[in-house]
């Protein structure tokens, strides 16, 4: 019988979700994107309207499904559907956006029930373009929300960076199994 697992990538428009999945996926990413028509055009030409999908094949019987949520809030009805059965959330935040700490607060609140029973890892993208906020600022913002999660500087194009995020998620799940 095939074992199936699910990892969810989320974050605001243009944070790098589609790129991150493509960086680690064994298969070509299925991307349901469309030409951007609203304020999204300020950041990119296309935007994900339903989800992105990639896979990691561990062996003949085990597969990890990588789902990227659409970034626009009007598609947030998809978020609950996509997280069903997931083992963890990889939240990408774009450090060049107007209010990235606000983005962090928004997405952690939107997924708070899912985070409680799984694990959150945060990746901050585009820190090479802006150092307005540092890792410590995001860590403090999480602490203010009573959340405890690894935060890394990430280039979503780099397989090594995305791999670190996923490994940190696994190690955190292992660590939590030592509690109690």
């Amino acid at each position, binding site marked *: 019988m095939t074992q199936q697992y699910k990892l969810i990538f989320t974050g605001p428009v243009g944070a790098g979700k589609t790129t991150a999945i493509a960086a680690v996926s064994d298969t070509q990413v299925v991307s349901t994107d469309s030409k951007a028509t609203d304020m999204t055009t300020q950041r990119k030409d296309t935007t994900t309207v339903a989800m992105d999908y990639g896979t990691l094949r561990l062996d003949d019987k*085990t597969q990890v499904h990588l789902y990227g949520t659409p970034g626009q809030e009007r598609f947030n009805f998809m978020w609950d559907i996509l997280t069903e059965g997931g083992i963890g959330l990889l939240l990408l935040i774009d450090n060049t956006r107007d209010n990235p700490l606000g983005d962090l607060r928004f997405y952690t609140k939107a997924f708070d029930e899912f985070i409680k*029973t799984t694990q959150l890892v945060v990746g901050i993208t585009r820190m090479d373009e802006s150092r307005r906020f540092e890792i410590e600022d995001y860590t403090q913002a999480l602490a203010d929300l009573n959340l405890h999660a690894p935060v*890394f500087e990430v280039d979503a194009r780099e397989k090594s*960076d995305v791999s670190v995020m996923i490994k940190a998620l*696994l*190690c955190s799940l292992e*660590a939590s199994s030592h509690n109690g």
Partner: protein
Amino acid sequence: MPSILDLNEDRRTVRWFYGSRDDEKYRADFDSSELFYDPDHYLQGAYTRALKSAENNDLINQVIGGGVHLFITDKGNTTYSNKNDSFLHQVCFIRTTGKTYTLKPLKKPHLLEQQKQQMTAHNSRNFLWNLSLWSSRGRLPEGISGDTLVSLTRWPNFTRLDIPPYAMRIVALWFNIPTTINATSNKLNVPFCAVYSVFSACYALGLVKQLSSNELKQQDAVKKVSLPRQFFRALFKKLS
């Protein structure tokens, strides 16, 4: 009990980062002076002082001595070294006197432009991380006990650091569940030298929060998703 993420870490890599002290030496006497070192008596200490000065004063600082010449620039973000990692790895373990290394600001910045073509640039945090590991080699900073209850204020930024064996698992434990240094080895089934070295490096980066047992809050045991061990191993190996 075998650890679920025991990946038979390459022994050479383990020795490179953590030295070769066997667990028996730790269990024989946790208070042995062999298991402690003073960073100020090593290149690590000189570099740390120079780095702080470069960050606080926004100047180009130099560390010179023992064949090593370092420039710390870009508000402390970048370090140029005239020696490769192999040389630094050897030098880091040499106990020094207070006069081995000279720290001084570079008064003529154009000299760096000339010299750095023959030097290697490093992210300074990664450089300090490595110096700390290579200086520690399985030892704790003096003044820290193996019974110290450890918590971390945040994860090291592992996407921009060299990640030694077992480090992510050790960090994950300390970040989630305050644990004594010595108990960490048994809990995760990882070598003492790894635990002591990772502590020393996290300590050097200012990430450690030492707790007293009174400060240890009883955490709500929220049930997290439980996954088969084999899955952890397979995915971790896939991504390595």
